[in-house]
């Protein structure tokens, strides 16, 4: 890495050296290790383990539920971000601070309390049970847990964008006779779209890897509620390392692709910020 040091400040080589060393030990060597270990196994065996029925069912549950949860977050997050940044009302600041609660609450606690609440005998679960809806130990439980952990992403991605919207544009639209609903669709929504998409992608990426909260609410039943991270844990508990490595490899490659697309989306949406 060549450096153009226009600032004349000291410490560049020392700090960059330590950064690369630490990054190498904690991140690059372990991630590389998984790829090397996978390359040592016969490819057909690895493919069979990564793509058998149980694994495919787990990917479908993981990505399907993550997609649904991230979509719920996109809709609800847009609505909450709008209310929090556009309106002044009693309790707004407390509500705003509470948005980060799913980030701050350990996933094990989130899973524990959601499982109890939505249990057929719990506060909320008994009401749903009367309607014939079972949440815990089903895919609905996965969606519930993933919606909870992903809630802050869209709200936090949108708030700065909503606050920097030009009110003049909306006033101009109104003065030209546009209804509020029409203004929202044609003037406001296009400006918010990149940030909504960024928040959606971040919530999706987080949901795909989530384990702690899901295991409490939905359990770990193959074909019914077993998400891909839970399948890895099942393989490890049975000392089937090749199976764990095969599924982990699929998840790792997909999460790298997701990280890349989030980065591109963020760069794209930041063009819309002043």
């Amino acid at each position: 890495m060549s450096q153009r040091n226009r600032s004349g400040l000291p410490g560049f080589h020392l700090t960059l050296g330590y950064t690369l060393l630490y990054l190498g030990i904690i991140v690059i060597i372990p991630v590389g290790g998984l790829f090397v270990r996978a390359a040592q196994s016969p490819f057909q065996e690895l493919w069979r383990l990564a793509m058998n029925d149980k694994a495919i069912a787990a990917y479908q549950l993981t990505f399907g539920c993550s997609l649904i949860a991230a979509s719920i977050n996109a809709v609800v997050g847009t609505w909450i971000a709008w209310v929090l940044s556009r309106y002044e009302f009693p309790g707004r600041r407390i509500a705003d601070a509470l948005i980060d609660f799913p980030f701050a609450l350990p996933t094990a606690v989130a899973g524990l309390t959601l499982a109890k609440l939505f249990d057929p005998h719990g506060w909320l679960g008994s009401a749903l049970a009367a309607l014939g809806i079972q949440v815990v130990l089903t895919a609905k439980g996965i969606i519930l847990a993933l919606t909870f952990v992903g809630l802050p992403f869209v709200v936090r991605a949108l708030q700065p964008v909503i606050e920097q919207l030009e009110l003049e544009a909306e006033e101009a639209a109104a003065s030209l006779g546009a209804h509020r609903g029409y203004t929202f669709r044609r003037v406001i929504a296009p400006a918010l779209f990149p940030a909504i998409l960024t928040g959606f992608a971040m919530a999706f990426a987080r949901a795909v890897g989530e384990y702690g909260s899901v295991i409490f609410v939905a359990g770990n039943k193959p074909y019914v509620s077993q998400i891909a991270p839970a399948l890895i844990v099942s393989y490890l508990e049975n000392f089937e390392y090749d199976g764990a490595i095969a599924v982990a490899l699929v998840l790792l490659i997909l999460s790298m692709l997701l990280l890349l697309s989030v980065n591109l989306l963020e760069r794209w949406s930041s063009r819309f910020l002043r």
Partner: protein
Amino acid sequence: MSAIVRSRLAATKKSRRGSEEHPWARRALIASAMVFLFVILVVPLVNVFFQALETGVMPYLRALGDANTVTAIAMTGMTALSSVALNLAFGLTASWCIAKFQFKGKALLLTLIDLPFSVSPVVAGLLYVVLFGRQGFFGPWLDAHDIHIIFALPGMILATLFVTFPFVARELIPLLESEGTEQEQAAMSLGATGWQTYWRVTLPSVKWGLLYGVMLCNARAMGEFGAVYVVSSNIAGKTETVPLRIFNLDLGLGGHVAAFAVATLLAFLALVTLALKTWLEHRQNQDLILASALPKHEH
């Protein structure tokens, strides 16, 4: 900390006609959003404390005073302390070279720093099993020298280090970048050494952001479940952290009151984290207002 700048903007914003919903539409939007947040955020939080105290204060205190719970708290403390210290050192060095210098490959470096955020915690734990587990690359060597990493504290610390890796660095890099290098250059041209400049000029300007990053890193380290679950042997009183203890108690070994009692510790940690975050944003906000009130220097 863009929230800080945001709340300042919000404070000066005035409502105007033509950019507002009908008052009743607004009331309906606010009320429904608050009901939703109440059900999805407040009810689960209250439920933790309600379930823990359901059978009274004594069973609650007994669950917290259990020897294995105390050991779990100590394990969580050690894990979090080591992760925060090491990732703080990394955050300080990485943010200096990335924010204050231009070099090739910076974008790649930033992406690699972000990588642990997008890796599933379970996969993170597995990475270290592949390296240090009995069947792993270094397994036979470690076995021969009687060194235990997987199913022991060092592995639990490594897994926690991985999942909390970006927190401090990600918080500091944008803050240091926005500060520029003029202040440091001025200090150095007046004869300050590099260290003096760093301690007296650079660090004070980002102290609230630094504290915020440390706090987030600590909250995640104390609450990490998946990654630690994979590398720990999960034995009560030996390799159980607080989140693992909640899981094992909930499985039926200790009953749900005990599980919720231990969970109140982490719920309380989350509340303290949120309160500190709000306070830090308020402080940073005041610093910004102070800075903008000072006369601008001409360069």
